């Protein structure tokens, strides 16, 4: 495929608190053994796109650890392959090489982007899990003779799983996007207003952007150069919204399942949604590749009670777990009861612990007799490598 994939590893704004402190959004663990970026990288690879650049901004250490040379995604290629673009300070760069907006990020990395042999670019963020056939998306883009194609979805049943800075698009009958409303604000209502504290959300009957765009590389280059020259640095406001009238921006409707994650509550919700077999089948419809850790199969010791849970390799379960998502190498000692929780890699729960609606980051130790309880919309979050 004649496409370069560009992934932004970070969210402009997110509310993931302790979870994105030690890592960029792209390397946030999810669904047991995966990281957010696995879903996007697998999407590219499953669509026969083997030329992918990841634009990072800060705390990308864990991401580089995770993706390595891209071997596990079959992205160690002579032509194309995986490139991780980190900010760099050059003596003549303005500022210090750190970018604050998408436009700046693209501008600073344009040399690398231009070096790709691909004619088109598909840009995406890291906060959404979806299953798009990018080959079909590119065909759509070419058929419609679009300057930019923006992916959107209609009728969102669960606004809690939509990024809250997702734009609303006004798509006309011919599929062209005529106007863009930023920060999901329309008639005084933002996505936040469709969400409610008790978890019962109001469906949104609008076209919401999913942060995926197709554009010819040469056009991207000139749009970005132009925007930089005028100091217009917001991709949505200064390119999409401003140029909606003059460019042919086409909307491509995505109709399948997606989960956007940009807050603690949506992170919790997305993980627990995976316990639903139908949703799991949709999310894992195509192979999702991830880094192999060579852990042993999970061990269940007599006396354990396990209900409705996802469990990864290397776990050892002696206690009770119910409605949980466990990453690799989690140990649950006997007489402990863990409910409705997400537990990341190598975390240990000692004896007689009681947890409900808790997110435990990697390498946490919960000592004997501790009790922690949160709520679905406000789970307790324990930072990486904490001893409770």
């Amino acid at each position, binding site marked *: 495929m004649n496409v370069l994939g560009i992934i932004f590893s970070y969210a402009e704004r997110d509310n993931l608190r302790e979870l994105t402190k030690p890592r960029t959004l792209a390397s946030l663990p999810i*669904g*047991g*053994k*995966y990281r957010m970026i696995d879903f996007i990288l697998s999407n590219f690879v499953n669509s026969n796109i083997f030329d992918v650049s990841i634009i990072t901004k800060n705390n990308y250490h864990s991401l580089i650890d995770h993706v390595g040379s891209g*071997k596990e995604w079959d992205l160690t290629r002579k032509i194309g392959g995986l490139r991780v673009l980190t900010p760099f300070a050059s003596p003549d760069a303005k500022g210090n090489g750190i970018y604050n907006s998408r436009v700046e990020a693209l501008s600073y990395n344009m040399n690398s982007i231009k070096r790709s042999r691909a004619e088109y670019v598909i840009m995406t963020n890291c906060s959404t899990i979806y299953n798009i056939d990018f080959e079909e998306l590119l065909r759509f883009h070419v058929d419609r003779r679009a300057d930019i194609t923006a992916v959107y979805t209609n009728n969102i049943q669960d606004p809690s799983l939509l990024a809250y800075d997702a734009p609303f698009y006004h798509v006309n009958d011919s599929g062209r996007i005529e106007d863009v409303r930023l920060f999901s604000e329309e008639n005084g209502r933002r996505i936040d207003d469709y969400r409610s504290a008790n978890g019962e959300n109001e469906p949104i009957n609008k076209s919401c952007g999913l942060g995926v765009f197709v554009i010819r590389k040469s056009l991207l280059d000139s749009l970005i150069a132009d925007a930089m020259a005028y100091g217009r640095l917001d991709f949505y406001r200064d390119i999409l919204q401003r140029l909606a009238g003059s460019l042919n921006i086409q909307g491509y409707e995505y109709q399948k399942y997606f989960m956007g994650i940009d807050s603690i509550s949506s992170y919790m919700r997305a993980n627990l949604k995976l*316990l639903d*077999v139908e949703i*799991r089948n949709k999310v*894992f419809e195509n*192979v*999702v*590749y991830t880094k*192999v850790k*060579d*852990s*042993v*199969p*999970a*061990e*269940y*010791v*007599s*006396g*354990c009670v*396990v*209900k*409705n*849970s*996802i*469990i*990864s*390799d*290397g776990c*050892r*379960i002696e206690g009770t777990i119910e409605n949980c*998502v*466990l990453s690799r190498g989690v140990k649950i000692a006997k007489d402990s009861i863990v409910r409705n929780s997400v537990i990341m890699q190598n975390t240990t729960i000692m004896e007689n612990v009681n947890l409900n609606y808790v997110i435990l980051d990697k390498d946490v130790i919960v000592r004997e007799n501790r009790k922690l309880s949160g709520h679905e919309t406000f789970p307790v979050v324990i930072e990486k490598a904490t001893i409770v």
Partner: protein
Amino acid sequence: MIYAKKKEMIAMLLAGGQGSRLGVLTKDVAKPAVPFGGKYRIIDFPLSNCVNSGIDTIGVLTQYQPLELNTYIGNGQPWDLDRINGGVSILPPYVKGKAGEWYKGTANAILQNSNFIEMYHPDYVLVLSGDHVYKMNYELMLDFHKETNADCTIAVIQVPFEEANRFGVMSTDQNRQVYEFQEKPEDPKSNLASMGVYIFNWEKLKDYLIEDDNDPNSENDFGKNVIPNMLNAGERLFAYTYGGYWKDVGTIESLWEANMDILDPNVPLKLNDPPWKIYARNAGQPPHYIGEHAELKNCSISEGCMIYGKVDHSIIFPSVTIGNNAIVSNSIIMPNVSIGEGAVIEYAIIGENAIIEQGATVGCINTAKLSGEHREITVIGQDIRIGAKNSIPAGEMVEFSLPGKEPLR
């Protein structure tokens, strides 16, 4: 002649055996490719041992049903054996000039690949077989080999005297030098059994392999011919005692036992051992899911499984589905098996991709259960379908699909 970078020691892994005593399990695959321990195959053990011992050049000699084994090994990447210098090479028999021949025996297989070995100019050659489950540091064995200034070192394990007649046994002096070797003796003089792991000085071995090849009466086997010949000629043979877990998984019984050993905390076969990981080609499946009414007791479950029923003292490989109210106990369920609602599986090994339909029973005895009774292991072959409500008695080996007892609605 091609020259590659010199290696001190390379490994030659004999993986051509059929493993006929495993019956239907090795109908389509060579024994080293038989699944083991929830996510591994038997060959993962010697391969991982090599890599963990710092050996990065391995020739895998294949002959019987090599397709699955070749696909599994691929470029060796899961074992970190995709190397510029060395790595893993698959070595099938090939045609030489006008004549070509199969590997006539273990020694002949090595001889036929002497060009491969010569390429690396090794001082030592490690000969391994692909049908044992054990974790062993070959580097320590090589140190012993050098210290004793041996021509050949044979790894040995102590076995009970009454079982020694199944092995090649070694009588040694106080320096561990071998003075007598008996292959499967009726009256064993020692209980030090050969593990089928040898280190040879390559120059020495080469001479004996050529000599052996010139002997028309030879079976071209290490245990039967080469080792006795070396001993008779007065070469320095030493026995290196290995004290860990080692099991020949050549029979249905021993394969079942070795799998169950993983679940037994008292058996020193620890797979969850980060500095000595056993590497395997990964299934690439999502983590497994345990349903609302599942009951799990002392079992090991792998990626991609969906468990709704009851699992007791069993090893479940990747992508297995166990339906509601199904009972699996004391069994090994190989990858991609589907077990229908209410099916009962006891003391069984279910081969890859088999389908056990709803209500079927496998390996069940209707008589009252005696405590400590010896149960025969039931085996269902690869890709076999056992129809709904059909019943397979204990100890059977099923090679053909069987229809259901009732028409499926």
